[in-house]
Each structure stands twice: as C-alpha cells, then as structure tokens.
C-alpha cells in the first residue's frame, strides 16, 4: 500500500481517525480496490464504524495487487501521528502512508512546513477483514440533517450521559436521555428535545418507533461531520435493530452503526401503541407515570423471556460474562476477532446471558437483520455489556 494525502484532506483523514477512536481501541486498515477502508468496532461489538476513502481522495493510491491486505493496529498510536489536530491544516502539507511488509510496519510520513519531516513507523497485526452486516436502505425511518442541528441537540446532554432515546412521529423527532432502570429514579433528571420535521433536510417516517443508543459514538461522528460540514443521514427501524448514521460526499463515505436497546415482544407492542399516540405527554406527567410504566415494562421484559429465565446453563463463556463486563469484553474480543462467522453461529444457538442490553447485530453473516429481528429478536450475537469501558 502506498498512498499520499495532501492539503485539507489530511485533516479530514485525521478527524476520521479521531472519531473512530470514539468507537474502539483498534483501527482496522483495509486497502481495497474502491478505496481505503478504516474501521473500528467496540469491544462489546455493539458499535461499528467505517470510513471509506475513495481513490480520488488521495493524490496517489496504490494497493498491493494479487492479495488482499488487512491489518489492525492500536488506534492510539495512529492518533498520535495526527496529535495536534488544530495545527494540522497549517503545518502538514502532505501525508504519505506506506506499507513495509517485510518489516511489518505501516509508515506514516508527514511532510510539514519548514521542511520538517515526521515519520511514524507503526507496528500492526494481521487481521481478517472487519465487515458489519447492515442494510440501511431497508430502514423504515430515514432522516437527513445538517450537523449543526444534531450538535445543538446533543449539546444539551451532559457528557456523562451514556444513552439517548430517539422517538419519531410523522412530524417530529424527540430526543431524550435514557434513564437506566437500575438507576435511582429519584435522582434522575429527564431532558427532552423536540425537533420539528422542517429542521431536517429530509424526514421520512414509516414506523413510529423509539430507539435507544449510545451517545458517545454519535458524538464522535458529529465531530467529524461538523468539521467537514457534511450532512448526517440517520436510518433506523425498531428497537433492537441498529441505527445507522452516515456521512457521504463524492470521495468519502462514513457509516456508524450503533446497536439499540432491544425490546421484548410484549414491550414492543406496548411501545409501538404508545408511540402511535402522539408520543410525549406533557413533561410533568411524564416523570410521574409514563416513565414509570415504561421502566416497569422494561423490567418485566426480562422476566418473561424464556431464554433469560431458562436453564442457567448457557455456554460457559457467556455465563461468566453477565456480572463481569470487563472480563466479558475481553473474552468477546479475544474470541471473536478472527472468527466472527463462527461465533455468530455459536451465539445464535446459545442462550443469551440474562441482563443484556444491546444486541450486536452487525456481524451476522446469517440472515439479514430485518427479517431475523422481526421473528426472533433475541438471536444474533449478544452484547455482553454496554460499551462504556473507556468512558473516562
């Protein structure tokens, strides 16, 4: 691999890497015919992001012919190459990315002002290609917004907030903080914003649903979208199936796929009827009964689930996970790195650990998420913990 990025594109590349660092600890570098793909997935596999830079993005783009090359590396070390984001535009004239297969080094050379040359030789590991399976075009709800709109919306939520819930009707979108059923409700504060459809560039709703997903990754994408000024498209279906956020222009394409909180079928019914009535009641009742009933529903949604209450003999690996998210993450990562497909099969016929939150649906090579989800919402590889491990 031998590519050269010049001028303002260096900053775009750097911003993309920084927003990928919000997702996971590793950067998957995959030079392809159709461009350079940079991907990352979080340890619990509930969030995935990919940037594809078309060959035209580069002033030179050569990839190894004959065999496909994939590697992964610590994202921190790549971030270090582009550490001073603010001055990057002013100082860096050219960035040269070159692969030395003999030495197993990926070399980033920054040609800076005043002839300063910064060379970073980074070690990498071979890896399989990282691919998420998702079909954003089949999603029922599609929105396109300028980054500013979402930035201004997200700004109202505290940095410590992990998840937001997005509900939609034909005319409006509500964004509110998600309150964990385990959290102390007396201390919980609810923040909700209502966006009218005319604030969006495109607003198409087919199913009145609410989805809950992690905010951290969304913030990561927003940083990128804001600096490039690209509009953000958002696609989602129903609770439990992923929400896809994407930015596109002629030379790059970025997609963030985030798991949403899954619903029990009983709750789902409850939820969708609720959603069909004009969703959010006035704020004061909201605190009193709506959230309560919602939370109760969430609560009971765990109990009646046969697989959750079922025999406490899930495969050893999974059973140890539920109470120890850290260990669990570790396991998933180790286990699933190179064998997503295998794991997928294994996971789908194993029982899921009881207190799961997000379904990680994207690595399913088995069935398209939509059909699978509507009939058997609990299949698919389960996420073992929310991806908050590096929230500090």
């Amino acid at each position, binding site marked *: 691999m031998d590519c050269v990025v010049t001028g303002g594109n260096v900053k775009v590349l750097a911003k993309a890497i920084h927003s990928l660092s919000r997702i996971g600890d590793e950067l998957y570098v995959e030079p392809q015919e159709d461009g350079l793909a940079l991907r990352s997935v979080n340890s619990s596999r509930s969030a995935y992001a990919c940037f594809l830079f078309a060959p035209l993005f580069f002033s030179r783009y050569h990839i190894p012919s004959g065999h496909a090359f994939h590697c992964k590396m610590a994202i921190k070390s790549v971030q270090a190459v582009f550490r001073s984001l603010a001055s990057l535009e002013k100082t860096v004239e050219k960035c040269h990315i070159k692969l030395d297969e003999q030495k197993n080094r990926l070399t980033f050379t920054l040609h800076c002002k005043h002839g300063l*040359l910064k060379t970073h030789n980074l070690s990498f590991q071979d890896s399989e290609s990282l691919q998420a399976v998702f079909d954003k075009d089949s999603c029922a709800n599609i929105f396109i917004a300028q980054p500013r709109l979402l930035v201004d919306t997200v700004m109202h939520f505290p940095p410590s907030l992990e998840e937001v819930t997005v509900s939609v009707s034909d005319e409006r979108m509500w964004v509110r903080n998600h309150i964990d059923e385990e959290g102390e409700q007396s201390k919980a504060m609810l923040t909700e914003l209502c966006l009218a459809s005319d604030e969006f560039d495109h607003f198409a709703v087919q199913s009145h649903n609410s989805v809950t997903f992690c905010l951290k990754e969304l913030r990561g994408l927003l940083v990128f979208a804001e600096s490039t000024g690209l509009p953000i498209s958002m696609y989602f279906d129903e609770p439990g199936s992923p929400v896809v956020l994407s930015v596109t222009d002629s030379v790059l394409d970025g997609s963030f796929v985030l798991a949403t909180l899954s619903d029990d079928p009983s709750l789902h019914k409850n939820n969708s009827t609720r959603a069909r009535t004009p969703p959010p009641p006035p704020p004061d009742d909201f605190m009193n009964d709506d959230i309560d009933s919602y939370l109760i529903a969430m609560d009971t949604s765990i109990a009646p689930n046969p697989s959750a209450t079922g025999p406490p003999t899930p495969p050893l690996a999974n059973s140890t996970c539920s109470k120890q998210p850290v260990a669990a993450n570790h396991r998933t990562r180790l286990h699933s790195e190179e064998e997503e497909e295998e794991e997928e099969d294994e996971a789908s016929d194993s029982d899921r650990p009881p207190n799961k939150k997000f379904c990680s649906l994207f690595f399913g090579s088995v069935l398209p998420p939509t059909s699978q989800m509507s009939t058997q919402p609990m299949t698919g590889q389960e996420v073992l913990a929310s991806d908050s491990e590096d929230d500090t």
Partner: protein
Amino acid sequence: MPLSTQSQADDEQYVLVASLDNARNLSNILKAITFKDHAIFSATPNGLKVTVEDSKCLQANAFIQAEIFQEFTIRDDLVGFQVNLTVLLDCLNIFGGSTVPGVSTALRMCYKGYGYPLTLFLEEGGVVTVCKINTQEPEEPIDFEFCSTDVTNKVILLSESLKEAFSELDMTSEVLQITMSPSQPYFRLSTFGNSGNAHYDYPKDSDMMELFKCTKTQTNRYKMSLLKPSTKALALSCKVSVRTDSRGFLSLQYLVRNDDGQICFVEYYCCPDQEVEEE
C-alpha cells in the same frame, strides 16, 4: 510597619539586594527550571544564577543578568545560598501572579548572609507582603565539564519548531534519541515507544534552522524523564541552541525574552543514557 524606612536602614547589612518592578520577570524564568525543590543561588556582580539538579545527570541553570534588575547591589564577589524553589515561587506569586497588563508585583529581594533567611518584600497595589524563606547550606553544583571548545555538533533552531515536536513526543518511549550529522538526516529526534518508532527530521536548510554546524555524525540517547522538564524552558523561549560534545553530553540553551523584552538564558545539561565512551 514602616517598611520602607526599615528596609532603607537595613540596606547596609545586606550582602545582596535585588529589586524588580515586575516579579514575573524572575518567577517566569524560575518556572523553566522547576523540576526539583532545591535550587542553588549564586550571585555575582554580573547577576544571578539559579541551579537545579536531578539524579546527578541533569542540571538546569537560569541566568538573570544584573541589568534585568532595577537595583542589584552585591557586597561580595560571590554570594551563595540554597532555598526551596517551590516555596520561593509561591511567594513570588503571592498576589496571584496576575497577567493583566499594568498590574504587576514589585519585588525587593534581600539576603543578609550565611545563616540568614532570604527576605522578599512584595508589593502590589499598595499592599506589601514580607516573606522570609529559610536558606540552606549551598551545595556545590556538579561541573559537567561541558566545554565549548569540545563541541562536536551544534544547531540553533527557532523554538517554535521544536515545541511541536516536544509536545507530540511519544512518552511511552524511555529515551529520546538525538542524531546530529553533517549529512542526512542532519538533525533527528527519535522515540521508540510501544506502538513503533517515530522520527522528526529537520533539514539543515529549513528556515527554522538558524545555525547548523555539525562536524561528525553523532547519535545519543537521553532519558525521556530527564529531558521532559526542559519542555518548560522550551515553551518560554524563542530560540534554542542544541549542542553535543565529544562525550555525547547534551547542552540545551534557551533564549528567553521576558515581559519587558529583555533577554535571559536558561541552560540544561544532560548526560547520555549509556556508558560514556572513552574520551
């Protein structure tokens, strides 16, 4: 207390009296060498030299020439004492170290001699604070025997270009390797960290390079932890001179311009991180 009359009357007894209209001119430059508590002060009629050392491998000197002071009276050829630098800096900033233009702390620093405390009179907006800092037995600073006639390689760079490199240095690397050479790569900073290595190359004809005088290719490693404090001096400075001698000892000289546009110098000496080659 009638401070002014008292200090006037006492002036005779002091071996050293130094006054500054703006105490920041002293505190700023002292910050550039603050990495250990103990600072050795040596005053001569030429000015004040403050020395801080670490592990017998690193020495930093700040020079404040007599001209920087509005008053600099010394009754001996050499007056030496040692004080706790952190305490001294706290005293110099006792009014908060405001950076608002037009507001400055005036300083009068007096020392009676061996066994006496260092007395600081600080005044801002008509309020006077008197600080007395106990002095300690002055230690003998290490002589690094860095002789300018033995300098093998020397470059002078605008600090701006090094600041960026130092702020980005991979701190997982234990050492910073400096290569100076009359041919490629001329002047190179390298780190060897967890995730790989990194090199920063400065060509000799860069407009950041004010002087390039390298006679021989030299590659030396210096402990990152030792060099890290010098970043403070770099941040204040406008130019830096990097020199190595035949033993691989490193001298970093920083030219610092103070609030009033006057020039002071800060100097760091550092031992290389390997057995000293035969001299």
